[in-house]
């Protein structure tokens, strides 16, 4: 992931200004976790609210598939093989966690 992303985690409940940052990208409050991929100028490339709602931590096949399309939309440095490996890793994690 570090090949493609600079990651920043914000505490939605306690973080000063966190709700304002989220409002820049979506009007209605979403469940947590919620995330977005942003261009360096701050514009949203894609966020975790897909056609069926916020995928949160992607668990189901639909959610994992949507997460894959998110990665593909943001893809600059990741190869297709990298994305496949990430998805395989995510599925393995979910399986181990019993999700």
């Amino acid at each position, binding site marked *: 992931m570090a090949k493609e992303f*600079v*990651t920043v*985690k*914000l*505490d939605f409940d306690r973080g*000063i200004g966190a709700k304002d*940052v989220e409002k820049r990208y979506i009007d209605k409050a979403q469940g947590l976790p919620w995330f977005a991929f*942003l*261009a360096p*100028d701050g514009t949203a490339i894609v966020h975790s609210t897909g056609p069926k709602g916020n995928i949160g931590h992607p668990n189901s096949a639909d959610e994992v598939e949507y997460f894959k399309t998110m990665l593909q939309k943001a893809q600059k440095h990741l190869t297709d093989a990298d994305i496949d490996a990430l998805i395989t890793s995510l599925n393995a994690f979910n399986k181990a966690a019993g999700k």
Partner: protein
Amino acid sequence: MLHILPFILALTVQAAGQQTPPPLPPAQVVPAPVVQRPAPPPLYDEKADAKAAIEAAVHAAATDDIRVLINWGANDDAGSKKFADARKAPEIARSTPSFFSDEYKVVNVNVGHLDQNMDLAKTYGVKLAADALPALTVLDVTGKVVANTAAAALRPDGDPAGIDAPKVAAFLKQHQAPAPDSIAPFEAALKQAKKDGKTVFVWFSAPW
């Protein structure tokens, strides 16, 4: 219509015989099965590696930007039991966010009869005494001591043996981690992404 035919026939036969039905047998009281629930584990794990548990809690607290609460006590100590009861009081149990899951990573360290983990307690500046348990230590995300207190400071007025839930709540509130700034790290991430030609992955979550 055919499916109700047996029911109609049965009614017809009963009406033709005009017999009083036999009395029902007395109801039998079947005792509910006794469910043997395992006893909850003791609050203070007497076999735990307390040093490792504290280190793990500091690591976990750093992830969520919260603090660590070390509760030094013993399973057979009256004050430690009263502290456990105080945790169930509304001032603490209904706090939002929850002190004991959202604001602090809690480590319960067994001190036995002041013969367990005493050296570890000393490294955090904790002075333990038999009539002053439990003692509480708050650590920040680097493992540095933020505050220490003992049962004596948490007594209800006029009660030399109790633990006052509002005083515990006030202590926890006073020393919980300050609300983190979200704007500065967000702006820093955008700046770093511009420099490195990368994308920002902004993730909103909460300690719970």
